[in-house]
Structures are given as C-alpha cells and as structure tokens.
C-alpha cells in the first residue's frame, strides 16, 4: 500500500493517487500526466516475476495486441491472392490444379498451405491469441480503472491540476461568485457536478470509458461462437435434391421433417422489359430473375417408432427463393441450385415392324421402372436390364450413375406370334437387335421431363452466439466512440481559481465547451498545454 498525503491508501504500483491525483513520481514535474488509465496500478505493471506474470504481461500489452491484429490482417490478405480450396472446381486435385493454373505462384501457395489458409492451425492460433489478448488486456485495465474512477475525489492535488493538458489559472475578484456561475453553465452542458469545499468536479460520459471493454467482450463472444462451430450438432450443412412432385426426408433432421417440392421454377428477365432492354441486348437473353421452389414442409409424427411408415403432417407451405429461405425449428432451407428438364418418364409403343401396327403403350418411370408391363391379349414387355446413365465401357454396357441422363433398356417383347420373346436394346436414337432380326420393336413415342431443385439444409446453432457478440461489439463501439468521458476541475487555490480539464478523446469538443462555460465569467481561458508546450509524458 502506498499512503498518499491526502490520506488515501493506494495499491502498490499506483502512479497517481486514486483519490486526489497526486503524482507519486515527482521527477517528471514539467511534463503532462499520462491520464490513460488514471495512473492506476495494473497487474501487468506490478507483478513481473512468475511465468504466469510473464504470460499475463505478454498478452496484456497493446503492442502485442497490435501485432496480432496486423499479422491476422497480413495473413488474411495473402489468402486472397489465389482462390481458396473451397472455391476451386470440386473434381480436381488441388496440388495439380494450383500448379497448372497459376504456375510457380500456385505451387508455392499450395505448398505453404495457403490454399486452406483460413482453416489452418496457425490462423486458428492467431485468432485464439487475439481472443486471449483481448481478455487479458481488458481485465488488466478495466478492474483498476473502475476502482480509480469510483474513488476519485473532488479536490485534487495542485500538481495533478497543473499537469493536465488543459489548464489555466485566473485571478478573480469574487471566487465563490464565479464558481457559482461556472457551475450553472456546466449544468447547462449536462455535466454532473460534485462539490467539496467550494471546489467543483464536473463530469460526463464516464460510461464511455467502458466502451472498449464492452466491445472487446463482444469480440470475444464472436470468437467463441466461431469456435463452437467445431462441436458436433452445432452445425448442419447438407444438400437436398428433390424432383418436382416428390417428397423427401430432409437430411440432418433424423427423418423428423419431410419436404415436398411441388415444382421448381426458373424465370428470366423478359427481353421486352423496357428498363433493361439495353443490357439484355448486350449480354443476351437469360438474365435470371427468380429461382423458386414451391415447397410443402411436413413433420413426421412417427419419428422414432422403429419400422413405422412416416406419418406426415403438413406444417408449412412456402415458396423458397434466393434470399427467402424456409425456416423451421432452427433449420433453414435455401434455394441453391437446380437442374432443369431431368428425364422423368419415357413412353414406348410395341410395334410390328412389317405392318406398322401397334399393340399398346408402356410408360416407364425412369427412376422406378417396372420389370413387366402387361399389354393384354398376350402382349407383354419385360425390362431385362436398365441403364439410367448409359455408357459403353470396357466390359460392355454400364451405367455412369443412377440419374437418368441417358437411359437405355434391354426389352424382351412377348406377343402371340413370338411366344419365346424377342430381345431388343433401346437407347436414345438407337435400336439394336443383338440376337438377330426381330418381328417387333419398341418405338419411342414421348418423354416427360421435370425439374429438380437443390436446397441447402442448414442449421447453425452458433448464429445466436455470434449475433449476440456482434450486438455487444456494436454497443461497445458506439459507447466508446460516440461519447467521451470529460472532466473539468474548478478549484479555489488561495485567491486564484484553477481550472483543469481532461477528456479521453475529442479535445476540440471539450475546448468548445470550456469556451462556453467561461464566457461571461471572470475566468481566463485555460490553455491547451500540448499545443503550447511539449508532448504528453
């Protein structure tokens, strides 16, 4: 403890008495006081021996903080030189891609791991140390600062006043009268006045001193929110493809929710749209105007009952568009992609080649073909094999995928004339008869298509935390930036009036207020000692 001559007991390490402001180190007499933290004892300035002290001191240093900010800045910038891995085409090898596309630069970029910079351990480390630094630096300052501002007394030591940036001495005929006038004026400027032995401490905007700590707290919450992402269950990111008219379980919801897509719509701007004619002429038709899925959301009431068929209850009907996701139970469904005119059904007629006579039509649902189509009167078609996405590979005909992009069939046709059946291979614009000349054939008649929509299924339980952190951050920012903490001391010293003032920022505004306060009084204008003398200590 350091006991000041005013009687106040200060913690060790204090520079200026918390109560009267008397500086404990008189050797810097000529200089202005460093008022940033009211000269309070901060842990980082007082304890410097143990390893914990050292870590604490490291992270509480603003210099270190600035370095962390600058390093994060530089690292982030490097990451934008070339596209990140997530933005390169999905079906390429990154190592190869970067080298081929960007040459040596690409090779270096990839080798140093910059292609996934924002997910790299050292970027995480930077952000983590930023968080740590924010917490420690704030705690180191806010606690003692709070103490000092609470303990401050009205009457200050003369060497405290003298060494304020704004300071002036006036000889006035009637000090008490003048102080009364000043008090009145200060009140008009919404200062809070404390009085003691005729001296005045006028103060306003103290709460703005907490601004930085509030905004740092907000940042810490945001950083924590960002880390939460890595915990299971906090984050769902799936894609749901639905064909027009189909109903699918929504992935990530454990079959609790189902979605039906009634239709997907793509609209483009009308060529005759007067407003945009010029540009449509230039870039050609097809500037998209709307991507939309008309959807119905269902809840499965039988969820969790083993083996039970889903029992769907309609919850909501909505058009999902870009910028208008469908939201439910913490999930959101976004319109993100689509496929137009996917093959849906193919129709074939059974035809006698010689006469051209037909014997009924079959309708093949390309996702769900039947194995036998009975046409009556002894006419029957069997599908022996089906290749939804046909390709002629090394080992004969195969399918590339399960999606009917290029359907092909091996039919077996039974008729009263051909009781053993005839085999024919039918693909788009192909009709082969591998086992010799047939009497009958399958004639393609028509194709039904439908659209497919792709919806991103997203649940992000970190959103609330991050939004909350952002809000706190903004509040702290505004609190600290748009208000200032101003204090004006007016004190009777002998037969003089001493006036000193301090603000944490915006000295211009403070000086204007002082001009107002001393107008029509006998006080002389206090000087800005920084403009007239040296720098702040």
């Amino acid at each position: 403890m350091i006991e000041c001559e005013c009687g106040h007991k200060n913690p060790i390490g204090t520079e200026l008495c918390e109560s009267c402001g008397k500086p404990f180190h008189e050797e810097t007499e000529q200089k202005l006081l460093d008022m940033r933290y009211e000269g309070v004892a901060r842990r980082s300035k007082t304890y410097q021996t143990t390893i914990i002290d050292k870590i604490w001191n490291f992270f509480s240093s603003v210099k270190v903080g600035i370095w962390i900010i600058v390093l994060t800045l530089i690292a982030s910038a490097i990451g934008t030189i070339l596209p990140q891995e997530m933005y390169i085409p999905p079906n390429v090898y990154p190592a190869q891609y970067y080298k081929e596309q960007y040459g040596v630069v690409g090779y270096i970029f990839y080798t140093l791991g910059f292609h996934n910079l924002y997910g790299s351990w050292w970027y995480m480390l930077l952000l983590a140390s930023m968080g740590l630094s924010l917490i420690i630096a704030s705690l180191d300052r806010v606690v003692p600062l709070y103490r000092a501002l609470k303990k401050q007394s009205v009457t200050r030591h003369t060497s405290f006043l003298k060494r304020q940036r704004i300071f002036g001495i006036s000889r006035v005929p009637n000090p008490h009268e003048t102080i009364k006038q000043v008090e009145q004026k200060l009140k008009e400027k919404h200062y809070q006045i404390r009085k003691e032995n005729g001296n005045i401490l006028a103060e306003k905007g103290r709460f703005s001193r907490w601004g930085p700590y509030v905004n740092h707290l907000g940042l810490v919450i945001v950083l924590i929110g960002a880390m939460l992402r890595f915990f299971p269950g906090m984050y769902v990111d799936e894609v749901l493809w639905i064909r027009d008219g189909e109903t699918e379980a929504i992935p990530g919801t454990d079959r609790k929710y189902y979605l039906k897509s009634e239709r997907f719509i793509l609209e483009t701007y009308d060529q005759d749209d007067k407003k945009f004619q010029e540009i449509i002429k230039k870039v050609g038709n097809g500037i998209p105007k709307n991507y939309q899925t008309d959807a119905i959301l269902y809840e499965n009431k039988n969820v969790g009952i083993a083996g039970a068929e889903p029992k769907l209850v309609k919850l909501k009907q909505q058009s999902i568009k870009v910028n208008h996701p469908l939201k439910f139970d913490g999930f959101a469904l976004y319109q993100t992609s689509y496929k137009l005119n996917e093959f849906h059904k193919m129709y074939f007629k059974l035809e006698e080649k010689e006469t051209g006579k037909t014997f009924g039509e079959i309708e093949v649902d390309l996702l769900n073909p039947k194995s036998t189509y009975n046409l009556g009167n002894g006419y029957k078609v069997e599908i022996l094999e089906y290749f939804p996405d046909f390709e002629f590979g090394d080992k004969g005909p195969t399918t590339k995928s399960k999606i009917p992009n290029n359907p092909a069939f091996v039919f077996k046709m039974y008729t009263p004339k051909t009781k053993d059946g005839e085999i024919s291979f039918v693909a788009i614009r192909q009709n082969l008869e591998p086992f010799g000349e047939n009497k009958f054939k399958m004639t393609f008649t028509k194709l039904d298509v439908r659209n497919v929509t792709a919806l991103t299924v997203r649940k992000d339980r970190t959103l609330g935390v991050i939004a909350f952190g952002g809000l706190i951050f903004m509040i702290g920012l505004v609190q600290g930036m748009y208000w200032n903490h101003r204090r004006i001391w007016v004190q009777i010293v002998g037969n003089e009036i001493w006036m000193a003032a301090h603000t944490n920022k915006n000295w211009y505004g403070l000086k204007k207020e002082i001009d107002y306060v001393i107008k029509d009084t006998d006080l002389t204008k206090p000087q800005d000692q920084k403009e007239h003398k040296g720098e702040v200590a």
Partner: protein
Amino acid sequence: MINVSSNLLASSFFAYFIATILAWGSFASKQKKASLKIKKWERISIIVAALGFLLQIGYFITRWIAISHVPVSNMFEFTTFLGMMIVLGYLIIYLIYKTNIIGLFALPTAMTVIAYASVFPKEASPLVPALQSYWLKIHVTTAALGEGILTISFVAGFIYLLRVVDQTKSSKKTFWIEFVIYSILSTLAFAIVSYIFNAMNFETTFSWVNETQQEQELVYHMPAIVGPPDGEIVKSSHSFKPIVEAPSWMNGVNAPRKLNSLIWSLLMGLVLYIMLRLLFQKRIGAKIQPYLKNIRPELVDEISYRSVIIGFPVFTLGALIFAMIWAQEAWTRFWGWDPKEVWALITFLFYAAYLHLRLSKGWEGEKSAWLSVIGFVIIMFNLIVVNLVIAGLHSYA
C-alpha cells in the same frame, strides 16, 4: 426519367467543381488577410457543395424510380454513390468543425471517384436473384457511408502531410506524397482517356477463352496495349495490335480489358503528372504547401482522427455486420471467406490497428496521417483491384 437522372448527376458534378474552385479561392486569399469577405466566399463554397449534394440526391432518387430498384447494384452506381458519401462525410465534418479546409481535397477526391464511376457501363442492370433483398439497400449504403467518412480521414491526413512534411529537400516522404498525387491523377486520366477514345469510336473485338473456360468476345474501347491471353482480333476500327497478353491468372470478369485500361491510366497519369511538374518547376507537394500555410496541423490531425472515430463504427455495421446478416440469408452462411468479405475484414482490422496505435502508442500527427493514407489505399484496393484480379461471389465489384 433516366435522362433527368443523368443530367442531375452532371449538374452535381459541375457544382462540386465550382465549390472546389471557391474553396481554393477563399483559402488562397486567406493568406493575405482574413477578412469577412473571405469568410463569405467560404460560406458560398459550402453552400454550392451542399447544393451539389442535393442534386446528386436528386440523381439517386430519379434513377431509383427509373429502374425501380435502389441504384447501387452495379459498379457505376456503387462508385457514384461512394462519391456522394464522401461529400456527405465532408458535410458532416463541416457541421462539426465549421471549417472548409476539408473541402479543398474532399471535393476533388469525390469528383475523381465519380469520374471513375462514369467509365463503367451506365445501363440499368436487372437484379439477379441474389441481389433481390432489402439488405442490398441497407448493407451497401451503410458500407459506402462508412467508407466515405473514412475517406475524409484520408483527406485530412493528406492535408496534414502536405502541410507539415519538409518540402525544401526531396525525401522518402516527399516521394510518397508525390506518389499519392500521381495515383489520383491516374484515376482522373482513366476518365479522360475513356472519354477521348469513346468519342473517337475506338473499338477492337477479340475472341478469347475467358476465366470460366468459355469462348467469348471481348470488346475494347481503347487501343489494346494488353490483349486477352491467346486472344484473336475479330474486327478492329484501327490497326493497333496488342503488345503483350494479359496474364492468365487474372480472374476478374473481363480482366484483360480492365488491365489494359489500368495501363492506359497509369501512362496517361504519368503524362499529366510530368506536365504539371514542368508547369510548376517543382514537386507538386511543394507547390501546394504555401497555400496551406494558415492551416493548423493540430486541427487537421484531429479531424482525421475524428473521421475514423465516426466512420469506423458505421463501416463495421455496414460492411461486416449487415453484410453477414445478408450473406446468411442469401448465401446460406454469414461468412465464407469470399475475397470481398476478406478485404472488408482487412479494412476493419487495419482501422482497429490505427485506433490502438493512436491510443496506446501515441501515434498522432504525421504517423497517423500516413496510416490514414494507407487506409484509403486499402479501401480503393477493395474497390478496384479485388474487382480486377480476383474472382468472387459479389456479382459486381
């Protein structure tokens, strides 16, 4: 309606021009004696500037009506709006500090930005689905306002440097001051060159394979110094042939053409700069300095800092928070490390560093003035270079 709107924009530009001349006039004569008459000219200058601002608001509203969505949806509209926000920032600072010093450079900066904007295609572009959101208005306007106010910080900081840096001998500092002047001249040159070649109907059409691997035609309206990679001339109004090809890693939309314009601007900027040097027979900074003799450096320093204080929260709100809210609605995630997003973050981090350096390390005056210049460079980088070189999700810019 769209014509009315263009005329309003042109008139506002003209008003800014007049206001600049008045501002310089009132300042140049202030050196002799500060008379009431000069105060009056300063007043008139600010009134004309405010009038220009109102005219530009008129442009904004009429264009909004004409195209029936908020006109900040392509490069022309956004950059024009940024110019308007710089003027607004200047007017705000005028209301606080009642001095027109800032106008000396804020108005020319705004004019340069608007001139730069006018080079982009001015047709109304229909809104693609991703842009159809009220967040477009909220996010883009707030971000631009923040950038406009931060630009005022640059303006004040730059005035500070012009005022205090020793111009009696050449040094690293004078070099960088000249460099900033040169950059501004290059931007002006860009507008001038575009106008000249447009008036002369220069046109070369190339066919090339663009960044999305599609065969495309690319029309140059300036002689091509830099052609598209492996491009072939389809037709041309003149016999000028490209000297080099654009590097293929430039991934912005129509990057080769933009690079070509950039090179033209830098060359013509150099020509303008040399002409001025020859005219003045000394560094441009040295020529300007005497005019600023009566400015108190402390005041411009404070204005520069104050602009950051006011602009930083606005920028954060518009360019990060609103941006994230919108990204969550439109792109399914609030943050995706898209280059434009990252550069907004970089801007944010930079000004955070500025504030901490100023507060804790006592970086005032000259040091923080240089920082404010760098801050402006970062903002312009996001506007110009990110657009030129880097492909991203942002459908324009």
